[in-house]
């Protein structure tokens, strides 16, 4: 078998081994069931408690949607604005980069005081959480635009508006999609974490409740759901990224 074929087989094999271990090790008593329940038990709980999980989803997904618009929408706009002006790039970007170091998770207690336990605090927190990295990604991408393209367009007689629509926008699409991919992932995580920290409903709240009840299968069932969400989001955006990759201005 050729080298790449062998590698593929190895990877698939590794995946199967890991899944198998997840199932076998707890059953054999090698890993305490409280820490890691067998995979089948987690999946079983997911199915058995599907009504609970299903009813938590609208809350969570709604919060994600709202935060997505705020963080990614706002992040893209601000990122473009900052990157557009050379002064702004020089002054604002270093500040934002330093701000990246601040552990935003400590803002959640503030959000809870301001907005209560309801969805607003989750939306606010997730929006803030995802905002800074999104701005940074967008600004970095816009900055990498090839100035020669814009000059060529001007030489060919394009108006400002035409330059934006036909050159700047398509050229910045790849980095926009990349920013959405990153920002979206952070929004999802931000919402779930916020729900875990303090909420009355939602998937994160459910996970915490299972934890306090020491129902580890329930905890893992919830985690599997979250992973499904982030995985789907990632896959969708990767596909989008591939589509617009051809627009990348080299």
């Amino acid at each position: 078998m050729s080298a790449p074929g062998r590698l593929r087989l190895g990877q698939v094999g590794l995946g199967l081994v890991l899944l198998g271990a997840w199932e076998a090790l707890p059953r054999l008593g090698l890993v305490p069931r409280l820490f890691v329940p067998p995979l089948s038990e987690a999946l079983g709980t997911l199915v058995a408690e599907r009504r609970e999980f299903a009813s938590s989803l609208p809350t969570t997904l709604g919060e994600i949607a709202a935060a997505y618009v705020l963080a990614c929408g706002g992040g893209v706009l601000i990122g473009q604005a900052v990157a557009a002006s050379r002064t702004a790039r020089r002054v604002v970007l270093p500040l934002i980069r330093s701000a990246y170091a601040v552990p935003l998770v400590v803002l959640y207690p503030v959000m809870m005081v301001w907005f209560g336990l309801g969805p607003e605090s989750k939306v606010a927190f997730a929006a803030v959480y995802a905002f800074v990295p999104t701005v940074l990604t967008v600004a970095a991408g816009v900055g990498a635009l090839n100035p020669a393209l814009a000059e060529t367009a001007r030489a060919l007689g394009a108006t400002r508006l035409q330059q934006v629509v036909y050159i700047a926008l398509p050229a910045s699409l790849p980095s926009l999609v990349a920013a959405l991919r990153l920002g979206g992932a952070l929004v999802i995580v931000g919402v779930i974490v916020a729900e875990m920290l303090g909420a009355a409903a939602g998937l994160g709240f459910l996970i915490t409740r299972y934890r306090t009840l020491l129902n580890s299968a329930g905890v893992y069932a919830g985690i599997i759901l979250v992973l499904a969400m982030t995985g789907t989001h990632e896959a969708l955006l990767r596909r989008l990224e591939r589509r617009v990759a051809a627009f990348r201005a080299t």
Partner: protein
Amino acid sequence: MRRSERLVVAAAALGAVLGWEALVRRGWIDGGLAPAPSVIAPALVALLTRPEVLTSLGVTAWEILASFMIAVPVGFFIGFTLAEVPFLGGLLRPLVNFLFGVPKSIFLPVFILVFGVTITQKIAFGVFTTLFVVITGGIAAVESVPRELLTVSRVYGATRWQMVREIYLPAMAPILLESARLGMIFNITAVLLCEIYGARDGIGYRIAAWGENVQMPQLYAALLVVAAGAVAVNEALRVVEARIGRWRSVP
């Protein structure tokens, strides 16, 4: 940033603080939710002189340091191994990339199930979160070493050990430092998340408590301390990174 721009930024920050103060006094901002800076400042001073708070800060600092000291060497070692050993690398790297994309915070409940609400749990979770950033950095660092330089050193008779010391280490240093710095950012966030979620001590625990009791001045003061601390650590690491990476040409 030029000096004049720095002054502008400082002036703007000062203006924001004064504006906030004014808005609270006018009643346009609810002083209960967002106390005026003149209220936060004394609270900050009081905070930093209370021994329990200082102890909490110490606990948090210890958790952060311990997890960092564990995650960085282990992560680099794993990264180097994955980069240098071909079959192992090809097999495990997609797994690492996949795990890198998985959000670690959602596993926090699992860590509490396993370790309970203890300092060990926080350190373990910190290591767990930081590890993947550092592994990825280790792999990138090894791959950044230009192969031609190794050929050159072979022509001039370098031993294996000399190649490591004279070529690998200097070439990898900037990327290793950068990933350590990023790892630290993730690490601090992870530890604080743990403390807010469930803890018996630590500044995160206190922040959550002040939030619950709506003790806003203390809450804001603590936020300032944490933010300042995190930024200070990051900037310090950035200075080291810049000095080590001076030879990299600006693209």
